[in-house]
């Protein structure tokens, strides 16, 4: 070997070693200079310190700060900081409770009376009044771009007021919303009359309380939809009723909110709240480790790594949603899915507990019904848990007429082989793994199963339009707000390509008793919207689903909220992260 050759090999070795060192550097080792120092938790009696900045990591930029136009969680966080709601969900139970307004409901369940808190004020000194709530409703009615019009269709006079005429139920024939009456003697009091009893209404009627002194000029009798939709204050709000005021939005990088000194519940302890936009969940994890972020949510894969970082605190709580395998019960190709026994066999035939360990590192709860355990609508009576039982699954398949052929594949009496394609959105590593594991386990039952990742964008269209090429689909639901399952499970929402009906009922499963339970939980004929009465209906609803298994209900993930230990009073829960944001403080 010549000297030159030796030199070259040494250089290559050095380069390779450098890369190995870089790869093997396990994050979470001793913090070097510049790292946030580990602090002990403050005691409950400790006086909150003023000042500092909360920096939350988000993997997407906010789209708007106008609640009427918003339909993504990042934007909802932003406008939630500056516009308070009249009613809020309890952070842990999800039940409605007064926030900026108190409310009563008439005995017939049709009239809601509200009174805005006397202290509630805008940051420009004006009081928050009933008209501000009405301005939000008028914004929804006039906007061409909102996706919320249907939410208010049961408010008396809304359909006659909303525009443009001919879209949905809007007729644009009235100059006011007749169902909303503001007390002439007290501008903080108003009532809303509904056309029918609607149990989710109290959360829907939170609506959007936005400043009339700002948005009123875009909602006059002669205003056009684009006046409101393109208002500069939609991206640059000038007044606030929430704990923070808008300061600056550096698009794609960060949105900065400063303390609202006149916040009606008391000014926040921290000076600023910053929503920092990062590329993905890996960047959030890195930002939390380096201290660049104060808090954010991480994925289960990063949990073990994060647990080695001594400067952060990890809070786990159940996510308001679940990941499932939806069976197309009307599939012309996977005909077995029409049979309840087959779907039950598919529930017994997959070891979901093992899947949860393998796919999300144990950070999830197995689901056997639509509602998740933290929701009040979750059934109290025990449901069939579908514990992994391969023998039972095989027996159910046999009972349904599927027998193993010489090739090891199940076939029915007509000789049709049981093949099954499980689709999911590509790029979602968790779901792709679940699809693969499910396919492998179903093969052991004699089903010719395979996983097929495809673009989420295309999958959504196929699902909502009822594309019959889909046999089984892994996707997830997010269940915020009211537990009303109408949009997903009522038979009127089963898509029908022939009639060009779209909807989220892509399993095509329907059951008259289930429809009735959903209807009674949403619009009860006796007007009883009490939690107990609705829960009874949802017991029936979940029992039917549990028995019929149109979904393998999969699992509900844990949310893994990570915060720097210096952040005090941080108490996120399933229904709210920011319920007490004005009480957060930074321990210096």
């Amino acid at each position, binding site marked *: 070997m010549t000297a030159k050759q030796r030199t070259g090999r040494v250089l290559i070795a050095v380069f390779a070693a450098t890369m190995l060192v870089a790869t093997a550097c396990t994050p979470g080792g001793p913090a070097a200079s510049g790292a946030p120092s580990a602090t002990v938790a403050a005691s409950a009696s400790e006086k909150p310190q003023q000042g500092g900045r909360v920096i939350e990591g988000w993997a997407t930029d906010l789209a708007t700060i106008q609640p009427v136009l918003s339909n993504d969680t990042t934007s909802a966080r932003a406008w939630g900081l500056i516009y308070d709601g009249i009613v809020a969900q309890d952070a842990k139970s999800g039940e409605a409770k007064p926030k900026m307004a108190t409310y009563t409901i008439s005995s017939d369940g049709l009239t809601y009376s509200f009174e805005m808190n006397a202290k509630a004020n805008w940051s420009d000194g004006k009081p928050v009044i009933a008209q501000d709530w009405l301005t939000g409703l008028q914004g929804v009615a006039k906007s061409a771009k909102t996706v919320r019009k249907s939410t208010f269709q049961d408010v008396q006079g809304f359909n006659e007021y909303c525009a443009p005429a001919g879209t949905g139920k809007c007729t644009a024939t009235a100059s006011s919303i007749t169902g909303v009456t503001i007390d002439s003697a007290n501008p903080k009091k108003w009532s809303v009359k509904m056309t029918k009893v609607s149990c989710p209404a109290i959360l829907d009627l939170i609506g959007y309380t936005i400043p009339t002194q700002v948005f009123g000029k875009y909602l006059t009798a002669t205003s056009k939809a684009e006046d409101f939709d*393109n208002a500069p204050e939609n991206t640059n709000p000038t007044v606030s009723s929430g704990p923070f005021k808008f300061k600056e939005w550096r698009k794609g990088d960060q949105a900065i909110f400063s303390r609202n000194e006149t916040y009606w519940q008391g000014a926040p302890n921290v000076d600023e709240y*910053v929503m920092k936009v990062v590329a993905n969940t890996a960047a959030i994890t890195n930002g939390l480790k380096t201290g660049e972020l104060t808090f954010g949510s991480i994925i289960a894969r990063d949990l073990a790594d994060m647990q080695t970082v001594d400067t952060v605190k990890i809070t786990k709580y159940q996510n308001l949603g679940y990941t499932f395998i939806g069976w197309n019960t009307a599939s012309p190709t996977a005909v077995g899915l029409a049979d309840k026994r087959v779907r039950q066999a598919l529930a017994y035939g997959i070891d979901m507990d093992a899947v949860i360990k393998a796919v999300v590192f144990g950070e999830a709860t197995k689901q056997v019904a639509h509602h998740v355990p933290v929701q009040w609508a979750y059934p109290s009576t025990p449901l069939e848990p579908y514990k992994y039982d391969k023998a039972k699954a095989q027996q159910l398949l046999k009972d349904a007429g599927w027998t193993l052929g010489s090739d090891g594949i199940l076939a029915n009496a007509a000789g049709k082989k049981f093949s099954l394609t499980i689709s999911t959105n590509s790029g979602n590593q968790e779901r792709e793994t679940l699809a693969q594991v499910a396919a492998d386990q179903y093969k052991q039952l004699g089903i010719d199963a395979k996983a097929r990742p495809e673009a989420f964008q295309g999958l959504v269209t196929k699902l909502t339009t009822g594309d019959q090429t889909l046999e089984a689909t892994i996707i997830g639901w997010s269940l915020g707000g009211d537990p009303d399952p109408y949009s997903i499970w009522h038979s009127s929402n089963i898509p029908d390509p022939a009639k060009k009906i779209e909807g989220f009922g892509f399993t095509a499963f329907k059951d008259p008793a289930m429809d009735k339970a959903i209807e009674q939980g949403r619009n009860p004929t006796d007007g009883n919207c009490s939690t107990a009465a609705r829960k009874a209906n949802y017991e029936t609803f979940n029992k039917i689903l549990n028995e019929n298994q149109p979904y393998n209900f999969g699992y509900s993930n844990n949310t893994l909220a990570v915060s720097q230990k210096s952040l005090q009073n941080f108490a996120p829960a399933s229904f709210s992260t920011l319920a007490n944001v004005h009480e957060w403080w930074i321990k210096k």
Partner: protein
Amino acid sequence: MRNFILRRLVYAIPTLIGISIITFVIVRMAPGDPIRLVTFGQRDITGEDIARLRHVYGLDKPLPLQYVDWLLAMVQLNFGQSFIYHQDAFQLLLTRVPATLQLAVTALALQLLIGVPLGVIAALKRGSWADGAIRVFGVAGHALPAFWLGLMLIILFAVTLRWLPSQGVLTVGKDVWDIPDRLRHILLPAFVLSLTGIANYSRILRTETLDVLGQDFVRTAHAKGLSERTVVFVHALRNALIPVVTALGGILAALVGGALVVEQVFSWPGVGQFTFQAAIAKDYPIVQAATMFVSVLLVISYLLRDIAYAVVDPRIKTG
């Protein structure tokens, strides 16, 4: 020369129209529907709501009509309203341009400041350990995927050593004109983005310098008794740099267009990251605006390169 430039400008028009058609068709051929994507999972959303939104954004018109509408508006720099942001797509894009330009210009500077000296050193020290090291670096520069290298550098310099920030353009709370803080942020992404260029330039310079050093005029310069430094830097390097200068023609546009991966890894709020996220959301106006923007940049830079060729090489007919 004027006719040459005019002719080139006229050629650019069908090129851009062709790009606009391809962009328009590809964006719409991709599976999925933007309105269904926006409304998926929304409680109580109805078919009428979806139809209304399709009408608002002109998506209910036949495709050829949609294209003509878009083309006519585009001539007036109106690329339509973003489905996601409810704002003018081109204005939104422009807010991302400065960040990408910062990254691209810094990467270009690094390519020249590192690539050119490395190429010259490799040529002058041909066969030495330094030459070997530069050649290994050149191979690595081409071979290492940007996303992997970026992540490794973040783990090493940001997470483990805490020398540099892991993401973004500026530390939260710092003044926007805090140049040292900006430099700390741009160092890693600019280096990753420049790596292929450094490898390219060092290779080109090495070859060109070796070639020039063997030519008669260099021997003449030596014979005249000029110092080695003068021969190399005044006579040889000036000639060796010609291919580099011409290669610069499309490099800036290529960097702007090619920064997508680096911007994504380093959470850099530039055009690439913005377009990537818009493509996922099927936000047609933004994807189309971004594609046309980068295309126009490329066409202009190639035009400038052709003009530069015409200026330096009399064999190219300009009349």
